């Protein structure tokens, strides 16, 4: 086992940042932590990186406790925080050499591990890190986090604010690094990146909502999900669908609406009402929920539980 997160709690003054976080990451796994800003992802990553002490619970990295054995932990992890910790007044190659020496190794010794990533920025190796574009900084930061050949790579939101093309390229690089036997724990606010992970934990308001393997489609849920499409565009139908009696939730989802009826019977009733809407291009069909659908479903479940308890933010 690469990583054991065992019932971790962490508060900052009155704010409960993490409550009872509990999961394990296998050797060689690519594990994703998916959730919006403020969910607690960075707090958890800082605990894993031994930079923050939890209030309760333990975090064990390859047998070492991140609090008691932090010196050992720091040798075996590579950590890339959301705001890259590069030295902006050092050049690209100086940054890399510096990180290698801090960990008692050299760039040459582990160059094979970073060559794919580093070769993309090598033409600029004499440029100051502060003068690089965002994408190049990201690649340099990744090279620096890998140069001591860590056993576990911890990446806190490496793709936030990055365009769809660069995000895809970054995930391709991660897959290659995983292929070298390095365990990767990565966080992201982009739900569509879940499919690149072996397993993902969905996290919201300091709690893990669910841990799942995104490649296994989730059917057999007690509620069913439908998509609605129309050549006339779906936004015009949103309020109409929501106000239907059998509709539990309806949300925009790209060029479709994703609709959760209250029950299977309701789904058929809704269909027959829609047939009377005089739009032959309407398509209503059952679909399997994506990770984003799951996340929204779990959020709604939580907020319903809260509202029945009469709670308010």
């Amino acid at each position, binding site marked *: 086992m690469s990583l054991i997160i065992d019932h971790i709690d962490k508060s900052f003054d009155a704010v409960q940042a993490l409550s009872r976080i509990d999961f394990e990451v296998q050797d060689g796994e690519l594990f994703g932590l998916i959730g919006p800003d403020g969910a607690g992802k960075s707090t958890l990553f800082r605990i894993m990186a031994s930079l923050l002490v939890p209030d309760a619970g333990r975090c064990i990295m390859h047998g070492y406790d991140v609090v008691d054995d932090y010196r050992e932990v720091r040798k075996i992890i590579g950590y890339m925080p959301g705001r890259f910790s590069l030295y902006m007044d050092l050049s690209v190659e100086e940054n890399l050499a510096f990180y290698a020496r801090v960990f008692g190794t050299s760039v040459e010794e582990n160059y094979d591990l970073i060559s794919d990533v580093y070769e993309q920025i090598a033409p600029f190796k004499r440029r100051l890190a502060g003068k690089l574009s965002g994408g190049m900084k990201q690649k340099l930061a990744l090279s620096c986090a890998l140069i001591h050949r860590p056993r576990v790579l911890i990446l806190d939101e490496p793709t936030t604010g*990055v365009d769809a093309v660069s995000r895809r390229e970054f995930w391709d690089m991660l897959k290659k690094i995983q292929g070298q036997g390095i365990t990767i724990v990565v966080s992201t606010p982009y739900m569509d990146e879940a499919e690149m992970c072996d397993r993902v934990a969905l996290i919201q308001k300091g709690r893990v909502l669910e841990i799942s393997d995104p490649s296994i489609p989730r059917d057999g849920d007690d509620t069913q999900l439908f998509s609605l499409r129309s050549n006339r565009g779906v936004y015009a139908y949103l309020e109409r669908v929501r106000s239907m009696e059998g509709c539990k939730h309806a949300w925009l989802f790209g060029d479709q609406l994703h609709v959760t009826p209250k029950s299977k019977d309701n789904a058929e009733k809704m269909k027959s009402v829609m047939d009377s809407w005089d739009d032959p291009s309407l398509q209503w069909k059952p679909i399997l929920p994506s990770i984003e659908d799951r996340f929204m479903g779990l959020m709604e479940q939580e907020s319903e539980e809260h509202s029945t308890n009469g709670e308010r933010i």
Partner: protein
Amino acid sequence: MVDHEHIIEVKEMVKKFGSFRANDRLTFYVEKGEIFGFLGANGAGKTTAIRILCGLSYPTSGEIMVAGHDVYREREKIKRKIGYMSQKFSLYEDLTVSENIRLYAGIYGLGRNQIASREEQLLERLALSHIRNRLIREIPLGWKQKLAFSVAIFHQPAIVFLDEPTGGVDPITRRQFWEMIHDATEEGITVFVTTHYMDEAEYCDRVSIMVDGRIDALDTPAALKQQFESKNMNEVFLKLARR
């Protein structure tokens, strides 16, 4: 022709930084009341173009009219007619919800009575009346985002520029935000928006995609998907930007 009034008209816009062409002869228009998606990879030149359209920087050359005003000579008039919101919301963290609303309303020259009544309406619509006296830094991100948008259109601008407005928020808040955008267009506000979420490109009436300082594609999402034989906008984007 009133139906198809061009609220933004850009002809051959060029912006050079030294020998580098950040914007290379951009030509496009935005119709009044539409949601116009302005997409492109990081570094493609989107921010440069938005700064010009908002009257914050001069183009090197080209003819550009925004809300009926010339970007060379009438920048102050443009600024009065537009709203702007970025991912780093320009709300003051150490002021309350209510103070932020009144501050921005005052900056845009709304009168005291007008501010009071519109503030009430706004707080009610956002269901934020109960936290009007809370500091911005104490409220959840999703609420801040909705408030930042409402403040950006509080003076009823002709156009609102949204620069990655939904970064980092949860998927439900993101969708509620797009419903607010649609509502704004029903009030006649034109929306000019950038995003890295490709599902959001589908919510736009028309989408342009910038690559290396040029606009390489511009059409409705449906037409772009057909043109690039793609099943969604993500594929369209990957095909264009990777060419």
